């Protein structure tokens, strides 16, 4: 396998009960790049994202076919523990969802419980918050409840919380859709910064956002991967007409 490829999907089908949400998806995600998944609502992009850290199996009556290779191992193999996968592949959700705990405990929660053996928790908390560019705003209120932060701060806290696990990949499911423009800009800057050390896969409804922050873009429609290419190419000269129609706002 190409050494730059961190995740590889082979003919992946996904079903909610009887209905098929993803059809024959084969694609590769490149290390230390930002890949954007775009497409109209219900096209399967969020479903695909949640397949990558096995979050979909929390829903009853779902089924996966095909294989998803992470570091050359199928994460859906019977001997793979999803808990182990999620430790390495972090996730940031659409709505900020900090725990009703202190800021400090939100960050230390994961490392403490998963027993990854942190020698200096204070340092890890500080480092994670700095990575998420939140440290300066919260360093004096670490023992206050995270629920008092603004939406944008909460989302950066959630990013810091995920980073504290030192994941290889960060999955982001429309991370700015619940935020105001200023907070959105901050998160986008952050993503730019984070891709030096992490592979980021982001679902977004915002075309400009995909164009601004991503290196690669995948366009999904009705559970199919329609086009997958360099972001520049997709947004300037797409190969498929459907892609062009969507990007230019003719449907979706």
């Amino acid at each position, binding site marked *: 396998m190409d050494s730059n490829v961190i995740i590889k999907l082979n003919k992946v089908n996904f079903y909610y009960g009887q209905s098929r949400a993803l059809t024959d998806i084969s694609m590769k995600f490149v290390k230390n790049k930002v890949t954007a998944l775009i497409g109209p609502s219900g096209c399967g992009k969020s479903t695909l994202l949640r397949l990558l850290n096995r979050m979909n199996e929390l829903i*009853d009556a779902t089924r996966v076919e095909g294989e998803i290779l992470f570091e050359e191992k199928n994460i859906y193999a019977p001997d793979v523990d999803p808990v182990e996968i999620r430790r390495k592949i972090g996730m940031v959700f659409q709505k900020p969802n900090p725990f009703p705990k202190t800021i400090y405990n939100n960050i230390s929660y994961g490392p403490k419980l998963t027993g990854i053996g942190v020698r200096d928790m204070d340092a890890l908390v500080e480092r994670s918050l700095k990575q998420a560019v939140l440290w300066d705003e919260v360093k004096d209120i670490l023992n206050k409840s995270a629920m008092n932060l603004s939406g944008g701060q909460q989302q950066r806290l959630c990013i810091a919380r995920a980073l504290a696990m030192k994941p290889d990949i960060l999955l982001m499911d429309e991370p700015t859709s619940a935020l105001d423009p200023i907070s959105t800009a901050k998160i986008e800057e952050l993503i730019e910064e984070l891709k030096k050390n992490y592979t980021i896969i982001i679902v977004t409804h915002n075309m400009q956002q995909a164009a601004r922050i991503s290196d690669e873009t995948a366009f999904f429609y009705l559970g199919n991967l329609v086009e997958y290419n360099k972001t520049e190419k997709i947004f300037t000269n797409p190969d498929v007409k459907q892609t062009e129609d969507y990007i230019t706002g003719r449907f979706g």
Partner: protein
Amino acid sequence: MKSLKWRYFKQSLFFGAVRLSALIIALALGGILFYIMVNGIGAISWDFITKPPTDSMTKGGIMPAILGTIYLTIGAIAIGLPLGIASAIYLTEYAKQGRVIRLIKVGINCLAGVPSVVFGLFGLGFFVIFLKFGSSILSGSLTLGFLILPTIIGASEEALKSVPQTFREASLSLGVSKWQTIYRIVLPNALPGILTGSILGIGRAAGETAPIMFTAAAYFTAKLPGSIFDEVMALPYHIYVLATAGTNIEATRPIQFGTVLVLVAVVLSIDLVAIIIRSYMRKNKRW
């Protein structure tokens, strides 16, 4: 188009009706409490709550009954609460939702409606006779614990369900295991709700007569229980005995009212403890 005036009139009509209903309930409750207070307060004295009955229960205090009711209620909580919470966790967090689980839930709801005397007979047959626990604090606590189980399971289920799914997802997405997620995130956030529902069960456990009359309650014993295998007097049963089968029903009227007043006070103070614990836990919970 209905005129604004007409719509306001309708609104005040309905608000009025709702207020009236609330008022009627409050008045009825207040009336009962007032009646008990007026009739019972005369019997209350330091001796009444610290001394055992004397003269064939026509004089003296009710201390053994107070203590017995406290023991039985604590026993019922100790059995009902952990078992109920554990069942609710299984039903909401682990079990695959389907026909079997639905059937079990219907069963639990049915149990909540079973008359308490049936629980009493079950306790008599199973704990007292079959398991040979005899008429004792243990048998009574088990019977009462089972009696309040449906209430606690129901309340716990609702409380667990009200914890946002996003909390579970956030925790699991960090590579935290399911049990850790439940123990560290779901349960702490559900506990205030669980306690709210359980308060109802606790009140019921303290006040029930039928489940304990065959399993735990003594007609009269001046001696205090030395172990969980001893019989005890209990307030509800004492009231029942004095009011229907006592040696002198008319003469003990004030004692009956006094005992009722004490029972209400005991139930309220157990509830108060639960409410204080709950508000303490709620302090920094907000989402």
